[in-house]
Structures are given as C-alpha cells and as structure tokens.
C-alpha cells in the first residue's frame, strides 16, 4: 500500500506564500513524522517540532536531512502545556493539528 501525499507540493508552496521563514524561530505543533517540517526547515533559523506520538517523532528524526541537526529539535509534548518560555518563537504552525 503505497500512498503519495501532495505530490504537487501544494502544501509547502502555500506555506511559503504565507510565511517567509528566513531568520525565524518556528514552532510546529503536530509535526508528526516530519513530512512538512523537512520541506521548509532549511530556510528557518530554528525549528522546534512537537508531537504526542513518539513513533512519529522517531520517523521524523530518521528522515532529518543532513545539515539540520543543529537547526531542528523534535520534542514529545502536548500543545496545551508547551514546555517553552514566553516569546520563544516568531512563527507557529498548526499543521493538521485540530
């Protein structure tokens, strides 16, 4: 069972249309397996992806591109108790999270 999700890459095209990631500290809530994260992370200053699912985070970590080790942090966390200080991010993304 092979599924292709968004082969046209519309999602990241619209995401980039709605946010210029350059120099931004980004929080992605519900990053899952990193499918979207890895499509914009190279242009951000810092990305923190959170998700409740440890297995998805493990996949995301495996699929992390080279050169992103110091840019992207993946954390198991709940969006109603974010383990971050106030004013820590310039941009938040709720990706398929509601």
């Amino acid at each position, binding site marked *: *069972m*092979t*599924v*292709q*999700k*968004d*082969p*046209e890459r*519309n*999602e990241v095209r*619209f*995401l980039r249309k*709605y*946010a210029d990631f350059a120099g931004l500290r980004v*929080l992605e*809530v519900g990053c899952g397996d990193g499918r*979207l994260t890895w499509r914009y992370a190279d242009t951000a200053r810092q990305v923190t992806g959170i998700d409740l699912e440890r297995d998805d985070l493990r996949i995301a970590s495996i699929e992390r591109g080279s050169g992103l080790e110091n840019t992207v942090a993946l954390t198991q966390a709940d*969006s*109603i*108790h*974010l383990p*971050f*200080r*106030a*004013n*820590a*991010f*310039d*941009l*938040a*993304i*709720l*990706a*398929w*999270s*509601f």
Partner: protein
Amino acid sequence: MVHALEEIWRVLVAGGALIDLRPLTDRWPVEVVAVRRTEEAGRVTALPQGLADDAAANGAMSGGERSGLFKREREEFFPFHYSWDSPNDMHEYVEQEWADFLGIEDAVWRRIRSLWALADADARVRVRLKMLITRWVKVK
C-alpha cells in the same frame, strides 16, 4: 483547543504569526488520473466525526479571535492530493486510516475500479482534499 491557542499565544513574540493549516471535511472528489485524462469517479461521504472535528477547530479559532489573542490576516483554500497506484491500495488505506471520518459508497468503489481498469497503464487513483490555510497574527 482553546488552551492550545493560549499556549501558542504565550510562546509567540509580540506580532508573531500563527499558520493554521488543515483539511476541511467535505465531499472530496475521487479521481482516476492518467497523463492523458482525469476522470471523477465520485465523491467521498463525510462522516459526523470529521464534521464535528472541523466545527470544533473553527470554533476554537473564532474564539481565539473573539478573545483578542489573534487577528485573522488572510486565508485561502488549495487542493491536496492523496494518490495510490491502484484502487486496492486506496481501499486498504481508507479502511485503515480514514474509516472514522469518511466513507465511500459501494457504487463509487465500482466506478473507481471500472475507470481504473479502462484507463491507460500509468493511471493512478487519488482523492482531492480541500485544504484551508489561515495566517493569524498575535495582537496583544
């Protein structure tokens, strides 16, 4: 969800932005796609759970706006495709992943299989989701 918005508001800098990106449950079209031709085989059926999830999300975002946490700046819709090599692959995925919030009637499955069998060898099956992207700005 309201608590999550309050938390996101807390960790964003003044003037920071929130991008809400999600599919909206709808009667999404199912298509058989080949290089030479695309044909619609029918529509999925939205189940109550999917509709309830959308209503809750919309309500939470509107609540965040009413309470002065965020201001809606812009939004639009765009298509997002899930695509499979064959109707069988699609059927397996739908049963495993989407059973709680959408259904596909037997008549639509028959039409999908029929169109796919008659299509060119490169044919795939896809569902076209309706995506909503909204940019919100932290306002206080």
